[in-house]
């Protein structure tokens, strides 16, 4: 297992009158090289949950396993440096964390901080730049001359330069235009498929969940209320809507057709799946004319 949570509870300011439990008794597992999407309404505990993944927050009770690492309430910060290299975190609007004079220096900063020589770190920076789809002419430019979408790529290159095995993404496409969103999601898919990275994606974009995720965790009020494949989780649109969550467009569309009397074996999640199901029941040519 790449990730497993065993009865994880997290309480902010535990033991004080301000104590506020943000996660309650969370258990789940993600296999090696898995792709997990976490969905849930604002304030449902998604952000707290992902901060457990590299022990920015340590559980108040329970155990988190990330590959060979184990995090318990007793884990000390001294043990965490290799974990932080192992789990790359891309927070919301990561471009706001850029600070260096040149793009190359910004990407090379993390590896140098972890002891890599300047020459090696610079070479790695150039590789990562190519990986996020920016050519070498960008290396000497200031990150602040770039468009928002390009700045975000540079910030992600900086995280990838740490060679993480688990990549945690908190709404990585917020504010990008549709083409930028698609390119960004394709980049993560490539890292997942070609380099075997385990991906954890926090998102409101149900289309992305349907298209990319292998598992979905649904959070509500600090609890894990559903866990399964996208196909399983999206079979109950009414339940999701009652939890203020959306379903993919194709699922919504199929549900509207269902109210007209069209029966579905399985609600489709994408336009392709919907078209497959429609084609399978389509009247044969000629026989449909009345």
């Amino acid at each position: 297992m790449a990730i497993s949570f065993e009865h994880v509870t997290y309480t902010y300011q535990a033991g004080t009158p301000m104590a506020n439990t943000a996660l309650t008794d969370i258990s789940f597992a993600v296999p090696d090289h898995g792709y997990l999407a976490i969905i849930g309404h604002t304030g449902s505990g998604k952000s707290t949950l992902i901060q457990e993944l590299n022990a920015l927050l340590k559980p108040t009770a329970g155990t988190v396993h990330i590959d060979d690492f184990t995090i318990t309430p007793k884990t000390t910060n001294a043990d965490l440096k290799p974990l932080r290299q192992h789990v790359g975190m891309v927070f919301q609007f990561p471009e706001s964390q850029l600070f260096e004079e040149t793009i190359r220096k910004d990407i090379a900063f993390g590896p140098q901080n972890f002891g890599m020589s300047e020459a090696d770190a610079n070479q790695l920076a150039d590789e990562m730049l190519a990986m996020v789809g920016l050519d070498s002419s960008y290396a000497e430019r200031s990150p602040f001359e770039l468009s928002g979408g390009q700045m975000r790529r540079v910030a992600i290159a900086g995280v990838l330069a740490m060679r993480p095995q688990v990549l945690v993404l908190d709404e990585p496409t917020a504010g990008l235009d549709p083409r930028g969103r698609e390119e960004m999601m394709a980049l993560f898919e490539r890292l997942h498929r070609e380099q075997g990275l385990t991906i954890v994606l926090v998102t409101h974009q149900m289309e992305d969940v349907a298209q990319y995720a292998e598992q979905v965790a649904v959070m509500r009020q600090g609890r894990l209320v559903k866990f399964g494949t996208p196909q399983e989780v999206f079979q109950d649109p009414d339940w999701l809507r009652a939890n203020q969550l959306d379903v993919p467009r194709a699922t919504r569309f199929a549900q509207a057709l269902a109210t007209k009397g069209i029966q579905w074996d399985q609600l489709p999640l994408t336009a392709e799946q919907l078209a497959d199901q429609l084609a399978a029941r389509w009247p044969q040519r000629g026989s449909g004319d009345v």
Partner: protein
Amino acid sequence: MANIIEVAHLSYRYRNGEHDAAQRPALNDVSFTVQGGEWLAIVGHNGSGKSTLAKSLDGLLPFTEGTITVGGIKLTPETVWQVREKIGMIFQNPDNQFVGATVEDDVAFGLENRQIARADMVPRVQAAIEEVGMTEFAHREPSSLSGGQKQRVALAGIVAIAPDILILDEATSMLDPQGRRDMLDLVRQLRTDQHLTVISITHDIDEAANADRVLVIDDGRLVEEADPATIFAQGERLVQLGLDLPFTSKLQAALRQRGITPPDGYLTTAEMEAWLWQSLSNT
């Protein structure tokens, strides 16, 4: 109806960058008009110049060439405050536009700025907060609200000052899908109740679908102007222009690949449903 906004031969060049790319005009000879009461969507990909255009209308950027006339007033450094009286603007990130410690204070801010007497201010603030459905949050801190609630408060601030024009500068792009739909419903309602002209700068296809007319900006130029159905019928070109494909277009394409021939052109969701239902029941 008369034109409430007239833009003629507008050009703008950012001057802060040393790099060559920064010297390309952000807006290049853009001309268009907006009718009173119209909902106009301005679409384009990131960096196309659409936000520059929105900021120019409110006098936030000093344009280099061309003229902008709002409600019969030509925008100049001398008239900029008169023009801003007529325009309410909402930006992408709600956290960047709060000044008040509570929702109520924040909504009152615009009125205080206009030196409205307290006796008038109190009912106007309350009415505005009620109009956007945030009454129970009136004494809350804005930072404790969700993104969608924050944008509602921003809308209440605009309702309170009752401008003629509402400009939404990617105002729904940071909201979750439900928050986005709620906000668009609210804008539709405000448009009727307050007789607003709405200009929405967006790359959200559902938001553009609300408009009477869509302007497409690419590379600082106005490249197209049509009703949403005409724009949406363009298929893959929409992606180049910075919009997503409507769901019905994706489904039409997927069906064609499977040997099924749906009607050509843009179909609304209801039209697509009706056509599928009819085809499937014809057995």
